[in-house]
């Protein structure tokens, strides 16, 4: 083909450069400054923000919370998603309807689902305490709060995993299952030796998407607990946001943002490497 495409792609390139790459350079620039926009303060201080960050206990606490949140929620979503997908991977009446229902938690805003769960978790009038006959302050106790947030996240995002796994399972030829059955394999053996290996690429894709999403978690925590009680649910994004827009330290907040960006970059590089190795 000889028609030139440059003019058609130009608008996309320009808007992506201006609204994502330029701010990315700018955030790095900000992170090297002591910057408080309200007071018009902006002094170059080199890497002092980063040195402070290494000694900042609240940062390490936020990192620990983020890793705990990411690890637990991603593993739970993956296992639960796989179970539900395997269970739904058959033909039955109303399959389309079930797929639509599974999509609903995924489609509603995270903020809305967090508000719904906040009411469910309510210590006095919440239905959770009523069902279990307990009297637990789910969002007010340091132990339960982060796990309650994880549970909400699992509810909200497992459907995404279910849908991708269902699509992946449909691609596996049914003859493979039948052949294995004829050869006397148990359903567990079929799962381990046929389903799992063929599903591996999709599992990695789901892992990548979910890990990235969970690592930058903001909405769910902001609404449910705001980082409390006593910073026990404060993740990196929440800490960065508070530093930026509540204490108005744009320099240090930007340094925290840069760290989130670097972590996300490292996670995706790791997955992409594993993924391309798997394909070869």
């Amino acid at each position: 083909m000889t028609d030139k495409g440059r003019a058609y792609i130009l608008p996309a390139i320009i808007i992506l450069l201006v609204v994502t790459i330029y701010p990315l350079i700018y955030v790095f620039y900000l992170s090297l400054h002591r910057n408080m926009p309200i007071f018009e303060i902006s002094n170059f201080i080199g890497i002092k923000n980063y040195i402070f960050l290494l000694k900042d206990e609240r940062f390490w606490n936020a990192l620990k919370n983020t890793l705990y949140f990411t690890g637990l929620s991603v593993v739970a979503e993956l296992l639960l998603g796989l179970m539900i997908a395997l269970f739904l991977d058959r033909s039955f009446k109303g399959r389309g309807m079930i797929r639509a229902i599974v999509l609903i938690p995924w489609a509603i805003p995270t903020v809305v689902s967090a508000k719904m769960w906040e009411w469910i978790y309510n210590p006095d009038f919440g239905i959770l305490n009523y069902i279990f006959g307990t009297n637990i302050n789910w969002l007010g106790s340091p132990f339960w709060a982060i796990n309650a947030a994880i549970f909400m996240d699992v509810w909200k995002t497992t459907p995404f995993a279910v849908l991708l796994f269902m699509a992946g399972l449909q691609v596996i030829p049914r003859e493979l299952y039948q052949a294995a059955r004829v050869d006397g394999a148990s359903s567990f053996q079929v799962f381990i030796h046929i389903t799992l290996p063929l599903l591996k690429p999709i599992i990695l894709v789901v892992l990548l998407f979910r890990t990235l999403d969970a690592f930058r978690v903001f909405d769910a925590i902001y609404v449910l607990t705001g980082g409390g009680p006593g910073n026990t649910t404060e993740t990196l994004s929440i800490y960065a946001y508070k530093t930026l827009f509540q204490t108005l330290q744009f320099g240090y907040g930007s340094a925290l943002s840069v760290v989130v960006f670097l972590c996300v970059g490292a996670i995706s590089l790791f997955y992409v490497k594993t993924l391309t190795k798997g394909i070869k």
Partner: protein
Amino acid sequence: MIKKMGFYFLLLLVVFYCLGPIIWQVITSFKPDTELTAIPPILPKHPTTAHYMAVFKKHPFLRIIGNSFIVASSTTMFSLIIGSLSAFALAKLKLKRKMLILGFALSVSIFPPIATVSPLYIIIRSLGLRDTLWALIITYTTFSLPLSIWMLTNFFRQIPDELYLAARIDGCTPFQAFYKVLLPLCAPGISAAAILVFIFSWNEFLFALTFTSTTASRTIPVAIVLFPGLHEIPWGEIAAATIIVIIPLIILVIAFQKRIVEGLTAGAIKG
């Protein structure tokens, strides 16, 4: 028979898992205030629509729904126009470094919003766009572009090159061939991308929270979080508001579930 019943029991469990919290919210939205602070009973004794009335009377909720609607539909329009032009170039035209451009778009899609929110805030403030719908439309259009570009490039690639060449030989300019021949053939892909972009913009919270400050530009997620209560949290009104917000999404999901699933899985399975 027992196996079948077991299957339907588990199916019911999955349905309940997905819908349970929403059903509880529906029940809450119809309970009068006095019954909200008492459990049991689970179902409202004297169901009322007072909370729904209050959402529109006591709060500028219509205005906020309007804001969300304008932002989400404008974003969808811009994202798809720019995205389909790019996809056309990437799938059918001569272009250097196609893989690099696609990789660049993909890497933008993993940007954590928190990483760009502080500079974008400063830029938007200095342009005088703070607390305007444009601030959100521009940001959302950009961050949804990777999705549009990837999905539409996949769809444009599925159209045989011969169709494009035939249109050119018949005297179409490249742009005419694009919008008279290729675009109509891509309609399913475009609607799938449109739904995903719309849902993304309808639901986004971090940028909306940062760039808006009054009802002039506030969108639904921000309004729900900042729902004002005089003395205590107005759970009934919040429940009613969330149900109002969820209904269009549920209709969208049920009407377009096939397209949505296609859109979500297309990239993942082929990529």
